[in-house]
């Protein structure tokens, strides 16, 4: 069978591809393409962003260096610019990938996890460019605790007016490592904030203790400031999600799946704020109340402004994807009233990239679209949205990096 849809054009380093029609699926005859490490999608994980002009920015790892390139014309990529002058372990393996954000003034901001050569140990790194990505200032270590322990799962958000927020999971308070251990995970969500465009960051702040240890975090900027989203631990081992406004600090539980598990799922969720300030979350759970990946609308509320005792009504969870095909690793982005969610499925042999779009701030959804398939190892999907386009960036071992547009106007 011919997979006639892929690769409309293959240019310098990536391909813009049309969506795969369902009937065109399963036509993979490509030879096996190994990844750098046998089991992990090492260095497959990429970061991507659209700037205000609609230019696509990519951050990816190449030979131990983190590099940034951009495309101005939906095709040709600029020559990659190294963010890290020296080689270092830039972890890019699924739940950890380089984050990139581009402000209207042309400043480019990145965070990533620097591996320290032993399991679970890392530093959160930050670097910025103030000349439109032509050069980058030397990276800094964001975590002010410098033990060689777990500081991982960074998220980055900017407000475009000089505000830069970074959150991550941090094990600096972990003391006992024995079998009995502490009733708390001793891992927490930490934050660092800058109000001068990333030139300087304030001291690290602990936002929450007793978080899950190994799930990615999410972060978005709202009218009330940066809001983080992470898998928290309620009681001894219920692993549901929480949000907090980094400026106010109070936690609000936003999922009620009741997933009791004495382990870390390595499978988190994402958050985005729309133009009205409402929040959109996606997540994975195997809780007693629901199992799979889900989307939920979280209306803006006084809670986010730190008004004590106020609450807000959470939207009903919307199931994403096919649980029988291991639908997982969802992500969400929003712009104005447009909300795009994407996820990955696996049928036992091949991965596929899926997405669906809402144009009314998550109140209703267009059909789920199967955008592409992968013959071998695959990164998570990276959704991108602006007023004109809804795209999914997907890096896969056999096919390379693809930029997959959604079909619009079919809702």
């Amino acid at each position, binding site marked *: 069978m011919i997979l006639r849809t892929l690769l409309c054009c293959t240019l310098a380093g990536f391909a813009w591809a049309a969506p795969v029609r369902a009937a065109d699926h399963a036509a993979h005859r490509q030879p096996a*393409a190994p990844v750098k*490490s046998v*089991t992990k999608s090492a260095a497959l994980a990429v970061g991507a962003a659209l700037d205000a002009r609609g230019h696509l920015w990519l951050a990816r790892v190449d030979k131990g260096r983190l590099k940034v390139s951009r495309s101005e014309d939906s095709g040709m990529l600029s020559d990659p610019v190294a963010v890290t002058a020296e080689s270092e372990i830039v972890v890019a393996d699924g739940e950890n990938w380089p984050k990139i954000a581009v402000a209207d003034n042309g400043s480019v901001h990145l965070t990533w996890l620097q591996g320290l050569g032993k399991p679970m140990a890392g530093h959160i790194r930050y670097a910025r460019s103030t000349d439109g990505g032509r050069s980058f200032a030397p990276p800094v270590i964001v975590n002010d605790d410098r033990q060689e322990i777990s500081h991982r799962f960074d998220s980055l958000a900017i407000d475009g007016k000089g505000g830069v927020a970074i959150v991550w999971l941090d094990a600096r308070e972990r003391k006992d490592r024995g079998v009995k251990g502490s009733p708390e995970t001793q891992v927490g969500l930490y934050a660092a904030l800058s109000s001068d465009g990333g030139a300087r960051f304030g001291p690290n702040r602990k936002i929450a203790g007793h978080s899950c240890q190994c799930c990615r975090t999410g972060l978005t900027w709202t009218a009330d400031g940066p809001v983080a989203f992470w898998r928290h631990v309620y009681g001894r081992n219920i692993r549901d999600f929480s949000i907090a406004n980094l400026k106010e600090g109070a936690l609000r539980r936003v999922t009620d799946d009741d997933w009791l*598990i004495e*382990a*870390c*799922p390595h499978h988190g969720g994402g958050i985005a704020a729309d133009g009205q300030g409402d929040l959109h979350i996606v997540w994975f759970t195997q809780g007693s109340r629901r199992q799979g990946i889900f989307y939920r609308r979280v209306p803006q509320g006084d809670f986010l402004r730190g008004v004590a005792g106020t609450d807000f009504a959470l939207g009903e969870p919307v199931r994403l994807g096919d649980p029988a095909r*291991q639908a997982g690793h969802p992500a969400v982005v929003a712009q104005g009233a447009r909300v795009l969610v994407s996820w990955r499925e696996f049928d*036992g042999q091949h991965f596929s990239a899926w997405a669906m779009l809402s144009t009314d701030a998550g109140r209703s959804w267009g059909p789920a679209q199967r955008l592409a398939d992968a013959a071998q190892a695959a990164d998570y999907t990276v959704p991108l949205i602006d007023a004109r386009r809804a795209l999914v960036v997907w890096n896969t071992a056999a096919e390379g990096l693809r930029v997959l547009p959604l079909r619009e106007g079919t809702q």
Partner: protein
Amino acid sequence: MKRLLVLWAVFATFCLAGTASVAAAAELRPFSAGSLAAIQAHFAGKPFILTLWSLECHHCAKELQLLGRLVRENRNLPLAIVSTDSPADAQALRAALKRHGLAQLDTWVFADAVPERLRYTIDPAWHGELPRSYLYDATHRREAHSGLLGEARLTAWLKQNGN
């Protein structure tokens, strides 16, 4: 293809290193698509515990610590331990197994460029959370469990299944 060749060269070296070591030493074997069937055949008609773990898993060390202690008490504990890391991690895997007193057991490590395929052969309903355990009874009906099993549940199960 070149990287695949390098990969398998590393892997072959790692297998040879395993067999060339002291005769009594246990092996760290590649876990491939047919490995679960082979493990089940090895334990035909007998109950056993299949434990999946990783170096990157925070809770797995605790699970291995418990299993190591139980193995010291019962050298014939019917146990198949499978790492979801890669053959390239062999050295670190052996060190971790040794640290937990499990070096004398035959164990396995995922060996596939798409590890999700191996995961799927074990259980399509498993999303990769670790540690993951399967408690097989003598007829090989199995109970799946994500997260630490806990000593109480494990010893109760062992007792119930004649160990």
